[in-house]
């Protein structure tokens, strides 16, 4: 797993992908932060910043995940991985954590700048900032797991990226869509699986166990499904 992790981290920086991601994430992050605090901010709770930044993941996460498996498949390098003495879960986890490190590293770096400004010119609620950040990181992890899975389904990076954009968009909007649905059971089900509604507790400064489990489960389920994709391909 460690070997794969190291290789993926290296790959992000030997190609433009890593730089593009970091630059885009920091720019978008800074823009949203400025917009939400200076331009329309009334207080220093910055809850709207966290809500907006989530939408940027629709474009940002696929940059990280689109090539993870599709490129291996296209270049046939997966043959090396699959004939090496490593477990499939180790392979998937290595890639997942590499993408997550990129994501979390950039987010934390951007946040350090943003939040230090906040502390200099305002009096933010530290607990809310921490819990909201944890929530954002978990949402990112869940999206990365989804992107990883979609990348394993195709050998075309563009298809992987577009597919991931579609699914993340869907995951974000089902929370809003649910309010338009009359059937109670469906509405509850959609709200239950919505990434967005699960996040609300974090926004209030609560580290809710159920929500934590929800995000961990999404990560695990999609990593497991990725393993299954490879198992299935081996057996078909």
């Amino acid at each position, binding site marked *: 797993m*460690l*070997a*794969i992790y*190291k*290789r993926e981290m*290296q*790959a992000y920086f*030997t*190609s433009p992908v890593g730089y593009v991601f970091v630059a885009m994430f920091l720019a978008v992050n800074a823009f949203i932060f400025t917009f939400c605090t200076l331009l329309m901010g009334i207080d220093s709770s910055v809850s709207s910043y966290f809500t907006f930044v989530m939408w940027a993941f629709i474009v940002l996460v696929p940059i990280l995940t689109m090539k993870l498996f599709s490129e291996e498949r296209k*270049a*046939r*390098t*997966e*043959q*090396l*991985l*699959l*004939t*090496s*003495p*490593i*477990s499939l879960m180790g392979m998937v986890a290595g890639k997942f954590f590499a993408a997550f490190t990129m994501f979390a590293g950039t987010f934390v770096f951007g946040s350090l700048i943003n939040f230090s400004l906040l502390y200099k010119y305002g009096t933010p609620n530290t607990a809310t900032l921490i819990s909201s950040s944890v929530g954002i990181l978990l949402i990112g992890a869940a999206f990365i797991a989804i992107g990883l899975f979609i990348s394993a389904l195709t050998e075309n990076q563009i298809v992987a990226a577009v597919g991931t954009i579609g699914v993340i968009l869907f995951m974000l909007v089902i929370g809003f869509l649910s309010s338009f649905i009359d059937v109670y059971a469906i509405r509850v089900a959609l709200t239950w699986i919505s990434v967005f509604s699960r996040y609300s507790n974090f926004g209030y400064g609560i580290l809710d166990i159920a929500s934590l489990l929800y995000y961990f489960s999404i990560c695990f389920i999609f990593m497991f499904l990725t393993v299954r994709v490879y198992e299935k391909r*081996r*057996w*078909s």
Partner: protein
Amino acid sequence: MIEVKNLVKRFGSKYAVDDITFSIGKGEIVGFLGPNGAGKSTTMNIITGYMSSTLGTAEIGGINILEDPMEAKKLIGYLPEQPPLYLDMTVREYLNFVYDLKGCRLNRKKHLEEICRVVKIIDDYNKNRLIKNLSKGYKQRVGIAQALVGNPAVIILDEPTVGLDPKEIIEIRSLIRTLGETHTVILSTHILTEVQAVCDRILIINSGKLIADEKTESIINMLEGSRRLNARICGPQRDILRELRALPEITRAEAVGERENDSFLYAIESSSGVDIRKTLFFMLAKNNWPLIGLESQGTNLEDIFISLVDKKEQTPKKSREVPQFDIKLPEFENKEDNN
């Protein structure tokens, strides 16, 4: 070292590998010979654990690849048909990655340098060259180096010389022979001279079936039996053919080439194990027909296949003969019948 029993791989309704059984001992160099699409790569992919078999088992060093893939894979170094190279890495980074991936416990620096020396990429290794900037031959070498990392007992090479220039082919072949001194090597190819040059034993696969499992010499000898000559002879074509056919050792004689300065090219086949060159010479000399060219036609893969497939099917068919098809076209129904 490798024990394959009743291996079957089915893709949909097509059998890519159909009931193959063989075993390979320690230190053998075995060649998988077969035309493209015969099932060579599929068999190798199953042995290396990249694919699973539909039926049957593959054991490496007594370990079943499906039951304990982690342990079995530790014993194998595999170079797939397309070398699995990360083009954005340098040779050094790549080999270090493979070293970590295989979880080796050797002296890293010494081991990797030794491999690079063996496959002659030490220069690229030391100068930190990017893999994407290497020529095809050198990429192939890096692919072989990757298979050697961790010093596995079994080395499996899928068409290791495809696309290389003649000099590189010779070098890679001699490298494989060197490897064979300390490892069990399987290589696949569709080039007969390659297995002749490198392997102790040949497994011939055709349409997913194992049609021969013999020592290299015996396969070659099997075909030496029928000798074919191409002779260019000056003189009247009809008379020459008549005289040639009159010789008891000659089973077939035909004029195949065009007239060139009063001479014809004749294809002559003799019965098994008989060298007719001397007889032919004296007969022609006696008739005063100058023999201006004579070459013995070597055996090739095509002949081996035809001969072995024929043997297997027990239907005698002359090699190089255009197969005759008996196709009946459907008859059109009379319009009036339809009405």
